[in-house]
């Protein structure tokens, strides 16, 4: 159990850039180095983690933890995975707040904001490709999903114009999906 916690602590520390960056590191540690689960099970875990609510990194570590040592394993793995991030981001935020009056730190923070927005755009781009073309790679899109584009357009319109509550929005989209894809 301690080993599980330490492994995920390492995983959490080594991964910058969120869910999709964490997956290859988990794979390397858990499948190749420790041999806790097989490649096949790992692929299933990723699929399920994407389908279930919650951040991808948390889902994947929870699932791996359950497979190895049940619910206590899930808690050990998840806490290990998020601990470094929590500590570092809290300290970093305090640091920026404290030195905001320094011209250089302020400038760095501003550039980080712009860059991180660029990274968010990149994540949105991946999700849009997946939604419209069912693929996240650029080379194989021929059949665009027109219905998905319409759902997306309607949802965006409602959000911009009426500032609809996001959870209501998600539930609505889920229902529309059930209606049009069944």
């Amino acid at each position: 159990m301690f080993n599980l916690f330490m492994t995920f602590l390492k995983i959490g520390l080594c991964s910058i850039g969120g869910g999709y960056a964490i997956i290859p590191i988990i794979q390397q540690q858990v499948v190749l180095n420790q041999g806790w689960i097989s490649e096949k099970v790992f692929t299933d875990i990723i699929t399920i983690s994407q389908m279930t609510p919650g951040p991808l990194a948390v889902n994947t570590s929870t699932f791996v933890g359950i497979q190895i040592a049940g619910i206590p394993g899930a808690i050990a793995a998840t806490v290990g995975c998020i601990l470094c991030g929590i500590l570092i981001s809290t300290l970093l935020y305090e640091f920026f707040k404290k030195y905001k009056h320094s011209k250089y730190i302020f400038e760095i923070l501003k550039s980080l904001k712009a860059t991180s927005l660029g990274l968010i755009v990149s994540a949105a781009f991946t999700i849009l490709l997946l939604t419209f073309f069912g693929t996240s790679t650029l080379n194989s899109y021929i059949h665009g999903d027109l219905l998905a584009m319409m759902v997306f357009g309607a949802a965006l319109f409602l959000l911009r114009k009426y500032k609809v509550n996001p959870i209501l929005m998600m539930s609505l989209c889920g229902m529309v999906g059930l209606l049009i894809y069944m």
Partner: protein
Amino acid sequence: MKEKIRFYLWLCYINLFISTFTFGGGYVVIPMIQKYFIEQKNLFSEEELMEMAAVAQSSPGAIAINLTILAGKRTAGWIGILISGICSILPPIIILSFISTWYVAFSNNLYIAAILKGMQAGVAALIVDLIMDMYKMILEEKSVLLNLFVPAAFIANAFFNINVMLILLVSSFISVVFLFMQSVVGRRQEHV
């Protein structure tokens, strides 16, 4: 005191809710926090949310968790960190411990796949909506450099798969060099 407890309960409930409805990666948490913490409750500014998002992305681990922790810390201090942390990992642990026993059946279920496909379009709309709001703020800075960072980071990440850490480091470095050069030029003009 009563106010405080009421706020802690709200924080607990909102984190459980956000975590339960976050599909597909941590980025959806950013618009969720924008809607509930800023538009509904006015707890901090959009500017601060962008700072938090930048810090959450520059730190290791799950971006979604880092961000909810920062929002918790900002609004309720150390207790806020504890509440946000526990409440945002609880739903995935509970849901996955149920699903893990029959996950093959779950992943092959057509109804679930249809619902998820609809939700994916919703997630995309939420993120695009957020990007529009945030981009407006970058434009207001009226800085050519900052305006270039957004597409540059996007292209570097989406088309060239460049490591996120590297992108963040390079852009901070460029901005520091830029500021340094500006101050040198400024000083020279003073001398003239």
